[in-house]
Every structure is written in C-alpha cells, then in structure tokens.
C-alpha cells in the first residue's frame, strides 16, 4: 500500500509517496528528489558516503528508514551551499583542492560541518577521530584534514 511520508529537505516541505516506508532515506533523496550529494557506497553503515544532517546531527541515510524521518529536517550537501555560494566547509575543500575522485566528499563535508558546529577549533586528532567512519579509497585524507582546519580558521 502506498504510504506518504512528510519531511523537510533543505528547507522545503516534501511528501514522499512510497510503497515501503522502511525504504532508506538515501533512495528517496537520490531517486525521488534526484539529489546528487548523498551517495551510495555500501548500504551497510560502513563508509559514511551517504551522510546527511538530520535535525542537525549527521546520520547515515543508507541505514535510516523513512519511518524515522517523519516530520524531521534533512539537510544534504546541496543544502549547505552551491558552487556560486559554497558553505565555509565546502569553500575550504575547494581551496585545499581536497578531492581526487571526490566520491567520498559528501560524507566528509557533512561530518566536518557537524564537527565544526560543536567544536570550533578541533585538533588534528579530533578531526581524525570525527572522520574515522568515513572511508576514502583515493587517499585524499591529508587534504581533507587540512580543509577542515582551514574551515575552522575561517570561522
């Protein structure tokens, strides 16, 4: 039976009509809303590339069923900024050229945004700890750490 689920995505009220309300949020964001920020990596909660902010907290959208997001606020990478007006963290990633393929960037930027919201001047070990669950196969880690530091400085 199609069910409707109401939520807010990037400041906009949305109703998703879905056969299976247990469907992970990731598929609603990518397939129904055609957002490109949150990405599928493992579907198992192991890589962090699907992260979004749910009421300001980072969550893995591949493991978050729609039933858990009813009437809640979701912010994706697109909701943080645009190429013309990037957020502070996005700008820092651009300035540090912190990408190779960039597939992991969504998770990194969402996680870093959440970190900086709580910890204004994180140390390198704090940054590394916050990003432990985010995998990057290209080996862009050092640039990502520098980008988070730069974003902290530019606050």
């Amino acid at each position, binding site marked *: 039976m199609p069910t409707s689920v109401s939520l807010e995505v990037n400041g906009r009220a949305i109703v998703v009509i879905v056969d299976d309300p247990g469907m992970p949020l990731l598929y609603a964001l990518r397939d129904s809303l055609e957002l490109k920020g949150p990405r599928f990596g*493992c579907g198992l909660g192991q890589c962090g590339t699907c992260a979004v902010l749910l009421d300001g907290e980072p969550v893995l959208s591949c493991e978050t069923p729609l039933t858990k997001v009813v009437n809640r606020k979701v912010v994706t990478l697109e909701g943080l900024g*645009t190429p013309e007006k990037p957020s502070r963290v996005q700008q820092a990633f651009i300035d540090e050229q912190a990408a190779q393929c*960039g597939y992991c960037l969504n998770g990194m930027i969402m996680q870093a945004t959440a970190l900086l919201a709580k910890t204004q001047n994180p140390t390198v070990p704090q940054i590394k700890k916050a990003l432990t669950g985010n995998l990057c196969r290209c080996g862009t880690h050092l640039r990502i750490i520098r980008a988070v530091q730069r974003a902290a400085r530019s606050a």
Partner: protein
Amino acid sequence: MLDFVSTRRGVLKTGGALFVTFTLVDKVLPALAQGSARKKTVSLDEVDGFLSVGVDGQITVYSGKVDLGTGVRTAFTQIVAEELEVPIDRVNLIQGDTALTPDQGPTWGSISIQIGGMQIRKAAATARKALVEMAAERLGVPPNELRIENGAIKSSGKSVSCADLVGGRTFSLKVDKDAPVKDPASYTVVGKSVPRLDIPPKATGQFMYMQDFRVGGMLHGRVVRPLAIGAKLENVDESSVKDVPGLVKVVRDGNFLGVVATTEWDAIQAARRLKATWSKWEGLPERAHLWEHVRATKINSDEVTANVGNSAKALSDASKRISASYDFAIHTHGSIGPSCAVVEINDGKITCWSASQATHRLRKQLAAMMAISPDDIRCLYIEGSGCYGRNGHEDAAGDAALLSRAVGGRPVRVQWMRADEHGWDPKGAPVLIDLRAGVDREGRTIAWESEFFLPDSFGPVPLVAAILADLPGMTEQLPKFVVRNTAVPYTFPNIRTVAHMLNETPLRWSWMRSPGRLESTFANECFVDELAASVSADPLDFRLKHLGDPRGVELLQRLAVLTKWEKRTSPRKDAKGDVVAGRGISYVQYDLVRTYVGAVAEIEVDRRTGEIRVERFLVVHDCGQIINPDGVTNQIEGNIIQTVSRTLKEEVLFDRSAVTSLHWATYPILTFPEVPDVIIELIDRPNEKPWGAGEPAATIVPSAISNAVFDALGVRLRSVPFTPAKVLAAIEGD
C-alpha cells in the same frame, strides 16, 4: 509550499515547482544535439580527431583518455589552452565517447599525460600552425609577423579570430609530428597549479557521477550472483518476488541472473528476496595453501627481462649467498562507489554509459557478447567513483546490456551492491617472487637472480555477464606490462631476471595500481636492502654505488638531504623499549624507463602487539615536465596512502567456493587515524618529456615500510600485508 514526490515513476507535485533540476551530460549532449556524432572523425592522425573550434571560438578537445578522478581533465585543458593561447575556460573536454573521441587506448598505467596528452599537444600545435598560416593569408601579413593571443591571430594593427578562421568547420589536416610546440620557457598555463575544474561541483553536490546519471524511461536492475563462482543455476523461484511492487522481470540467461524493476529500491528488494538454487562448486584453491598453488600453476612462457654476464656461475663462485621469497596478497580495487552503468537498445543499436577506463575496448567486448557489430554500439564515459585499474565498471555495463535486452531494449541502470563489488570485481593477482644474490670475498655483489610468478596477459578481462551466460568474449593481445620492473636499475656484473607467465589466477584477474611493478619493486627493493645489510653497508650508499643513471643519483642525493639521512647500517643498534622507530628507503625508476621516485618511510612498530604505524613518507619525485604541480602532489599523496593501506591491511579472503570478504569489515582499509604524513619534493624539468605521476609512487611503499621494520627490529617482512600476526611471527622466528 509542499512537494509530493512518488518513488514510483512520475512525480506528483503541488504548490510550485520541484526544487531539483536534473541535467543529463553537461558537455556531451550539446555535441550530440548538433548531430555531429555520426560525422565527426575519430582518427588518431587527424587534427579534427582531437580538436574543434566552435563558431563562438570555444575549443572542444576530444580525448580518448578519461579523467578517473585524477585531474587529467584539468591537465589536458591546460595543455591545449597553452598551445592555442586561450584562457582555460574557453576549452571544453569530451572524454571517452566512442562516437567522438579517438581511441587513445585505455586510461591506465599513469600514461595519460605522457602519451595521450602529448598526442593532444601535437594536434594543438598543428592547429596553431595552420591557424597562423590561414591568418597570414587572410591578413596579407607574413606568418612570422603574427602572434596568437586570446583566441585571435594578430599583427600590429590587424587581427582575425580563430572562430572567423575555422569556427564550426573542420581543419581537414593530418597531425604534423614536426609542428613546433611552444617553448616551455614561455609557458603561462602549463606548469601552474591550476585549480581542478571539477572540485567546486563535487564539493557542492552538483557534479554528475556515473552513479547519478539517469535517462528518461529508465528502469533499475540488480544482479543476483551465484553463491559459488562456478556454480550452475539450478532453479529460480519467481513466486518469491511476486510481492515486490515495481518488479518488471526476473532475467535468467544461463547462470546469469538479475532483476529489473521500476524503482531502485524495488530492484534491491527483488534481488534480495529472489530464491534461487545453485549447484555446489569448490574450484578455488585452499587459501592456506595459496602459494603452493601459485608455484604449481602452469607456466605459459618465460620472459627473460635481464641477462647480463653469467649469473649461475657467479652465484656458485660467490663466497656468500643469500636468498629469499616474497609474496603479495590478492587485493580488491575497492572503489567507494560500486560499479554502475546504463544501457539502452534502440533499433538494434546499443548505447552504453559507464565509467569504463577503456570505452573503445568495452565497445568491442559488448559487440562480441551481444553478437552485433561494434559500429552499432556507442559507449560514452561518465566519471564514476575513483578507479585504480580495470574494476567492475565494464562488468556492470555487460550486466546492464543483458538486462536491457531482456526488457525490449528499455534503458536499464545497474548499480552493484557492496557485496557484488567486493565479491565480483576482478582482483589483483597473487604474486610470488624468489630472489638470490651472491657476494664475493671483498663484499662486492657479483650475482643477482630473480624469478617472478606473474599473470599472463591474454586480453581484456572477460565480462562477468558473458562468463555467466556463456556468451562469446573477445581476445586481443595486450602488452606484458606486468614484467616491466622485474629487472633492476642497479649495475651488478651478473644478472638474470625471469618472469614466469602463469596460465591462470585463482580469481578473475585484472590490473590494479600498479600491476606487476608494485610487487616487483616490493621484492627487489627489499632484497637490495637485504644485500646492503649482509655487507654492512648503508642502504642509501649501497644503492648509489650501484646506480649508473645520473638522474637517479641526483634524486637519491636530494632524498638524503630532504630526510636528513644519517649514514649507518640497519638494523639500528640503539633500539630500546616496546615501541621502536625505524626508517626504510626505496627507489624505483618506473618501468625502468620513466618516472623516478625515491622515498623514506618512518615507522614505529610495537613488538608486543606487532602493530606498525607509518608516521611519515618523505618522497622525491621526478616525472620530467610537470603540467600541474598540485595535481602531481595530489596523485603522489593518494598513491602513497592507498598503498600504505594495501601494505598493512589488505587481503581478499575466500573459501573453496567464493570470495568471503564482501564488505569493509572483512576487507578493512586505512582510516583517518592511521594515515601517515606525506612530504613531497618535486623535481621539475620543464625541458624534458612529461612522464606519468601516480602509480610510480605506489610502487616504493611496501619495500620502504618493510625496510623500516627491519631497521627497527632486525626482522624482515616478506609477505604483504604486514599484519600484526605476521610481524609477531617474524619476531618469534628471529
């Protein structure tokens, strides 16, 4: 304002437009819209193969080499902007479209700039010369009084734009190998760290990866792989998925099994629930006896890669002989985003969008499998998640082709699940190396012998779909690139190095950063260290003493300065405590003919737990002319970190039936807290050829770490990965 979105096809909405817009292929589609796809030449010796000038003066570059997330798009743009003297935003790049781009060979081996970029540079230089000649005629001014500047050809007072000269038309000109290229001394764009063009859209969620690509009317497919690699599909119970709402079809073709549904989630649900029975199959070797299996594998041929003097005699004359065997585990590519492709079939013509590193070759493979002419297939490249060799993208394309055919040619998107990727992408080969050396009474190395057990290269990696459905593949002789670093850069008087080309590997094999050279350099550079230690020589001195090549010598001398190298032998004499620091050096000239890399690893190893921490890598790198220094640095950092991960942690697990390390918990890779610092010194040689960067830096990592552990503890690690268990066993056995 409220938007209603259905996960079923079609979108319901009220109260204003949906806020998400969706564009197809940013720069490919305009070219298609102009109907140029069928007419455009893709010849490698025509300027028009590589370049066109639009009526608006915009320059389009057609590149058969593709950007695998390595910055090649930016580098190629720089090269063309430089030769044609236009700002970089006037250059567009179309990559890997079989209808539009020349077949410059697969994007592999870090040769995109060295080979592909130089073909494009020559085409641009030819175009430049032709434009100046045309302008000379048009303006009535001798060519030597003309200069090219900002998209126009100018003399004092007169000017004509490139768009006026050739805009919207073809050059109809052969690429002139002798066309003068710009003097590097006058470069303004090449050699600069031009920011990557793709990073702003990637950082803001606007970039379209292959995984984001959609076409109208598209269905979603998923594959259901056999439980054992060689198992036969005995039975499929379609009633097990009849409740999946959007299911379109269960597709069965021999042992190939898949589902097609209207939504991605429906396809995933169907693939998970589908009940199928498979026959038992246990054709894989026992993992515990992998190396016996490799040693016993049929040898197709022996490649003798160096034969100097008489190594057998020298070995028997030696007063001291040392020997060792090294091995390197099976690795998986492990892209963070699983493989993905979309295929549609229209009037017997196939269009395939994928992140394949070799679209021209994929076209031939699909043609063989689908039994149609390559002319009826168009393969287009769209960048995907990082690609470090031939991973699963081509296979996903094969899957999508079979699924699309089964639903009347409707476009089908296949994205692999994590277990499909870890379980079924082609793997690195298990490589085994035996080494022997002899030293005379004066402590001079008089003999060096090595034998490598490497995979033979028959041709393109067969498509999983073709294997499972028992459909034809294609053959094509590929270069035996895996043997290219089996010989050594050192001048020993008697050398014999042989590669045994093995008939098969336990798991489907493909090239993965940096095939053959990574394993060869691991063994060679560790064994050189063993030799140095056996004659009580400083390992850096030992290498310098045996290196004839002045560029290599300069590189090592600069490495000594960068690392403040302290002359002494390994192991260190002053090791105290449970956690001991060590340094290890390694050196390579890639393929023995191009990029030079030297590095020192600084590590700490805990003798109680066997854990290795790599603290720092210090690297000196000479790839000739540098196109984009920050791009080179980025590639070096990435290759070092990825290879530290492979060296310390990675190993594909399997039982007698199939791969069992199907996700990141069973195939762990390096995480942030474990990442070393990387310090890089680039040697720029603007007047030399540009060579590749990236893979060469990967090759020195395992040996530098192993040599550092020897420096710390005096034990040799000869088996990748260097897990804590192996370190403890080495300490125990010492």
